[in-house]
């Protein structure tokens, strides 16, 4: 399973406008091609997960994730903010990149946890190259992700 396979052009947002966690989650969920009712329920599930514990894991990365009965397949969205988002992260730092994962309550071969693990590993590599923040188009971004995934496979 490759992260890049989940990232279609519409799933990557380069210029998140929001400055706070709640607004950023709203902005990203709003991009989903679903009814307003479904989007509202997904947003609630994500916000509920944030109440249980922040998904801002530090170093400018947040990986909000939740399950919702209104979705029938695993979805991944990426949002980038040059200025940073107040996210109540574990290290108190603002967040520059958000990987948002939403999964149905049941998913085949537990892809959800596998994807979560891969993204956590990839994001740690990504932030070492701060220049990812300079990327402003999908083609360059997906190229970078694919390269990193290849190097991660080599390490295994």
């Amino acid at each position, binding site marked *: 399973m490759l992260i890049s396979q989940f990232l279609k052009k519409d799933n990557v947002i380069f210029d998140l406008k929001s400055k706070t966690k709640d607004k950023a989650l709203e902005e990203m969920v709003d991009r989903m091609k679903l009814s307003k009712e479904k989007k509202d329920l997904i947003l609630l*599930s994500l916000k*509920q997960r944030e*109440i*249980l*514990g*922040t998904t801002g*894991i530090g170093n400018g990365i947040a990986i909000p994730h939740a399950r919702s009965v*209104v979705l029938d397949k695993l979805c991944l969205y990426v949002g980038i903010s040059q200025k940073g988002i107040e996210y109540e992260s574990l290290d108190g730092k603002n967040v520059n990149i958000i990987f948002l994962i939403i999964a149905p*309550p049941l998913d085949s071969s537990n892809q959800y946890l596998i994807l979560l693990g891969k993204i956590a590993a990839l994001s740690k590599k990504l932030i070492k190259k701060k220049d990812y923040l300079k990327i402003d188009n999908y083609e360059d971004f997906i190229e970078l992700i694919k390269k990193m995934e290849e190097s991660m496979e080599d390490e295994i």
Partner: protein
Amino acid sequence: MNIQLQYLIQLSDLDTQLEELKNDRIRTKEESLGFRVQAKENEINKLRESIRKKIEPNLLNKYDKIQKRYKMRAVAQVNDGVCYGCFTALPTSYVAEGDKNNKIITCPNCGRILFWIE
């Protein structure tokens, strides 16, 4: 969509997450990735109660009975006429109706509350 069904989905999504985090394997995995569950027991209960009090007592009662039996996923999605709670095909009479999410329908096999995905 029926507003009570929306509250039931919200509660079911929360309970599914809470139940998952009780699972040692999943919790350990999340912690190893850097996530923490910092909320205290009383904060979690407060959050749960705030949703529960919006749900009509008879529906809440139904939800609790299903939740007690299956631990999670008291609300199941229906995909291609199949209940994704018990993976049984629903009778054709269930499938033929109009906007099914406008009312509360339960699976005749497992009893879970149904949400039609389409």
